[in-house]
């Protein structure tokens, strides 16, 4: 599970993952929310044909939404491999997943195509390169809906232009603890960046994890959108690191207590729900970030954050589990790995 983490990335003490996606639509087809099922089938065929000769870039598996159990679907969402929007109309939707899970090509989400790259740590350059390469290849074989002034035409006008959304997941416990988070969110909103919880729009922030992404997609070149986000991100990284230093100086005993209590809970609990586990994993990560504990890698914690989610835990157990059973399994998994 969670193959996409086996990759390089920097600033991992703050940045958990980098995701980039571009939205594309084909000329001559209605957008997915209004298309017929026949139309969606034809379009899928066309995309698969276009991808057939895409070689030398890893192998892709083709997965149809209506061939997946609801547990499988949820597990792909929890692993950030697909977006929640892709399971809305399972008879229409499918996706191509590269074997290393760094690239997903979603077919018939809200747009005909959503090309996504997903990498651990901060890695905009590689992320954009991966998306761009797939896009370059596809646009040689497919006619994309494009307008000279409006750019790539998308189902929702908020994606028009470049169709590009770059999103970075950050772990910023010290910014939260020092009470700076609200003004950070407001500041980011003012300069056109969105801040969301870990499962996208409308989801709550848990475990001090936030997703920062660009809100506007029209009017700047792709590279500039990414560069702007990158610059802001470095400021967030520096702010978080400075806050960590201050906390470690001013509230050392309190922080250490928090980290070790969480470590104890994760090591010895017999029943734990996902929300509680997220809180303690966040504290343990903070302990690693502050140098209070070692012997646990950042990516291992990210992996655990995904593996303790409800669907993923049932999938690895190989069966549907009631909530109480999941909480037992989760505690078991955490004891084994921490």
């Amino acid at each position, binding site marked *: 599970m969670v193959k996409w983490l086996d990759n390089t990335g920097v600033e991992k003490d703050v940045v958990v993952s980098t995701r980039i996606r571009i939205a594309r639509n084909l000329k001559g087809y*209605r*957008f997915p*929310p209004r298309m017929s099922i026949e139309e969606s089938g034809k379009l899928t065929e066309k995309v698969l044909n276009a991808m057939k000769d895409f070689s030398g870039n890893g192998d892709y598996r083709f997965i149809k939404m209506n061939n997946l159990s609801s547990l499988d679907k949820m597990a792909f969402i929890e692993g950030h491999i697909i977006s929640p929007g892709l399971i809305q109309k399972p008879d229409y939707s499918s996706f191509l997943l590269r074997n290393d899970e760094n690239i997903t090509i979603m077919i018939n989400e809200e747009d005909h195509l959503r090309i996504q790259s997903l990498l651990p740590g901060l890695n905009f350059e590689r992320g954009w390169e991966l998306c761009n390469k797939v896009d370059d290849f596809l646009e040689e074989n497919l006619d994309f809906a494009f307008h000279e002034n409006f750019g790539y035409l998308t189902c929702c006008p908020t994606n*028009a232009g*470049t169709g590009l959304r770059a999103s970075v997941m950050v772990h910023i416990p010290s910014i939260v603890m020092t009470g700076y988070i609200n003004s950070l969110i407001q500041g980011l909103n003012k300069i*056109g960046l969105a801040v969301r919880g870990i499962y996208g729009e409308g989801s709550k922030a848990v475990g001090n994890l936030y997703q920062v992404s660009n809100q*506007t997609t029209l*009017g700047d070149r792709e590279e500039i959108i990414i560069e702007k986000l990158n610059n802001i991100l470095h400021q967030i990284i520096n702010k978080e690191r400075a806050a960590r230093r201050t906390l470690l100086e001013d509230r050392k005993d309190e922080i250490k207590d928090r980290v070790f209590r969480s470590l104890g809970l994760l090591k010895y609990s017999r029943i734990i729900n996902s929300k509680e586990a997220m809180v303690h994993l966040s504290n343990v990560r903070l302990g690693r970030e502050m140098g209070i504990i070692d012997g646990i890698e950042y990516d291992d914690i990210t992996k655990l954050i995904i593996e303790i989610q409800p669907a993923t835990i049932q999938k690895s157990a190989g069966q549907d589990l009631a909530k109480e059973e999941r909480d037992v399994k989760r505690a078991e998994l955490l004891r084994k790995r921490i």
Partner: protein
Amino acid sequence: MLCQNCNQKNATVHYTKIINGEVDELHLCDECAKGIDDFDTSFSFHKLLTGLIDSVQTEAMERQDSDIKCSFCGLGYREFKKTGRFGCANCYNSFKGKLIPLLKGIHGHNTHVGKVPKRANQDIIRRREIDRLREELDLLVAREAFEEAAVLRDKIKELEDQLDRG
């Protein structure tokens, strides 16, 4: 202060609405605030977007609304206003007159300057290339690299000729 709605609990949500200079104040408890449509705490992006679509509407547009339907997918502008989603790429043409202020409202811009698909109209690709070369030319001139600048200038000229011949 007690909640204006139930008059039982303490008002914890204080809400001031100012529309065209008219001030409206509300003091509510948490629970009553949740029930008020105006104060939906889960401020969804979708609601913000459809609100924006309304705000770029003028009265004249409003009157024509019922008439505008996309010629390819049949989506009406009214429906678009409700959902915030286009039905097909042709909607961008069908609703073109209304889109420029809408896109400007969302993005702060209304002109795409990014990537152009390889199979797009050749003229678009040429115009983009000319824009890019002109920027480069300015840089060269600023650096006083006149020989390189001359090469670039010829290249721009050639592209412009191709554009004229169409």
